[in-house]
């Protein structure tokens, strides 16, 4: 009867109640959204690379190197020579090294030039290796292995031909259409930027650029694929490389040695340290967002309080009647609190649904523009804490009108 009374009372005042629910829904959407995106972004970034001890690239900021080499966000400042890669990768402390060559794309998805070590040593999440959903690693010069999202979103299957565009923009007029790649493998989903990447051999990258100069194809070039296949296609430069060491104890020593490499200016970063730097930079933004979302919730709760307070004045007869049938003043207090909780729970429900659909809508955008893998599953370990926090804040906001009702019943 208690819940029925509160529910019917809210339905009876549906105009003001709906507006309050809308305000609360938006505030919970913002609060939940900020928390979810923050949490997911951290998790997504942290899971993207694991088991890599160092990332080596041209001298730049450590965050920048991390972003373009691992998350495919931004552009590299410079390339590094193949010679440097070979020297460092063959040093006694290095167990493996994965070269990465960036600069081309296919329909907005980045193309990565690499070698077989990528499929052998690259790991993500909790040291999970890449596995194939279909096919196998590239073997021929113009073979391509697709990330899961590329294959599913663009509907590619094994054997399909893919033309790579010069540059990383979504619409490019410089296409390597005379040397299409053949899909030979599709990777299992990883929830990392690997899913949005096309993986080709370094020789493949060289092959499509062999008769190109300064971003355009040399006019009159008549090189055929067969002719190129006979050539020794060793890359002159690469964008960066990932390093796995034999012993972690040597990490700082190797890092120092690379940073002091005298053949060319190189930089070696520890992915974990660079990520911490990134979070430190993001910290202020994070806290600002949290503060703003908390203030939005406070504003909505004040609105709820004002609406309930106004309703008490309209409900004096109802309060009198409830008192006459034996309702104690504390019942009136609880009734108003329950009404507030019902509004709050409805808003949490609607806010969560709204967030789910919004995440579904902007998921691809977040991946392609920011490299963020945000799942639309908004429930996490912190969800019960969030729920308790909102309910507690609601109880607090409704305390004034509830107490007014209590006093009216006295």
């Amino acid at each position, binding site marked *: 009867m208690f819940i029925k009374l509160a529910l*019917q*009372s809210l339905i009876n005042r549906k105009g003001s109640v709906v507006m309050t629910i809308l305000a609360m829904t938006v505030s919970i959407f913002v609060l939940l959204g900020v928390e979810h995106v923050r949490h997911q972004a951290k998790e997504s970034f942290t899971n993207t690379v694991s088991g890599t001890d160092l990332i080596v690239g041209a001298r730049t900021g450590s965050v920048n190197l991390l972003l373009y080499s691992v998350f495919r966000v931004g552009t590299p400042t410079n390339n590094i020579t193949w010679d440097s890669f070979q020297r460092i990768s063959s040093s006694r402390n290095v167990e493996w090294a994965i070269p990465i060559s960036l600069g081309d794309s296919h329909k907005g998805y980045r193309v990565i030039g690499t070698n077989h070590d990528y499929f052998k040593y690259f790991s993500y999440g909790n040291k999970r290796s890449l596995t194939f959903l279909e096919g196998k690693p590239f073997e021929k010069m113009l073979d391509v292995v697709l990330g899961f999202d590329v294959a599913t979103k663009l509907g590619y299957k094994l054997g399909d031909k893919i033309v790579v565009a010069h540059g990383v923009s979504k619409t490019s007029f410089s296409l390597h259409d005379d040397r299409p790649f053949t899909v030979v493998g599709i990777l299992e989903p990883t929830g990392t930027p690997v899913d949005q990447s096309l993986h080709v051999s370094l020789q493949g990258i060289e092959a499509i650029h062999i008769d190109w100069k300064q971003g355009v194809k040399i006019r009159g070039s008549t090189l055929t694929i067969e002719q190129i296949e006979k050539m020794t296609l060793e890359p002159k430069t690469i964008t960066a490389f990932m390093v796995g060491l034999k012993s972690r104890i040597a990490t700082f020593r190797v890092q120092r040695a690379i940073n002091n490499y005298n053949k060319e200016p190189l930089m070696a970063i520890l992915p974990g340290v660079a990520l911490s730097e990134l979070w430190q930079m993001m910290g202020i933004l994070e806290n600002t967002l949290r503060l703003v979302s908390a203030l939005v919730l406070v504003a909505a709760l004040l609105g709820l309080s004002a609406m309930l307070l106004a309703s008490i004045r309209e409900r004096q007869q109802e309060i009198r*009647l409830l008192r006459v049938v034996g309702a104690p003043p504390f019942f009136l207090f609880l009734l108003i609190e329950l009404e507030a909780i019902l509004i709050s729970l409805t808003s949490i429900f609607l806010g969560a649904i709204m967030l789910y659909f919004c995440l579904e809508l902007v998921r691809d955008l977040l991946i392609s523009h920011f490299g963020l893998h945000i799942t639309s599953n908004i429930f996490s370990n912190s969800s019960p804490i969030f729920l308790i926090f909102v309910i507690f804040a609601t109880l607090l906001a409704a305390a004034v009108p509830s107490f007014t009702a209590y006093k009216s019943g006295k």
Partner: protein
Amino acid sequence: MIALELQNVRFCYHSSQDDLTINIEHWSVKKGERVFIHGPSGCGKSTMLNLLSGILPVSNGSLCVLGKNLEKMSNRERDRFRANHIGYVFQQFNLIPYLDAINNIQLARHFCNKNKHHDPREEIEELLQSLNIAQSDWRKPTSRLSVGQQQRIAIARAFINTPELLIADEPTSSLDSNNRDHFMSALQSLVTKHQATLIFVSHDTTLAKNFDRKESLNNLNKGSGI
């Protein structure tokens, strides 16, 4: 047997004892008696009924209702006592407008300790039928019913807990003569059936003929009224 007994009952809304709203030296009502109380506006009728029902606590004196001293009870005990033993009908706003007749009556049962685990649906339906409320109106929000229907549902609500004392505060004031007669006869028959004591307040002294006793609150109350 005495149903109501007031001994030097005093009540004032503010702390000043000079401004007494109610000041009754002695007044009593026998069990099963039907008392008609009249008096001009502001003589303290509603205040007195609020004291009798335990909504307001007396400032001084002894107020014994159905053998229980209300002045010795806590607020919570008075609320429970009222829910269990007293029925109340107002002039208007007797029902929660957005609830239907059945839920309005069930609400009164909710606060009563009697037959707590017994489903009151059958009793409610019997009461509504005996008060000539059409079945099609049982599930309508009471705000959509006529004033006459609302007052009859208010009687059903007041009687659902089989109260020993029924207080009616000008319940016929907003009814036309036809509805008033229907209301009075329904009320009287239920009071007889339940052998309840009835305290009926009204301006309309023509109704006094239906009662055992007629009292003027002006004569009873030495206070200033309100």
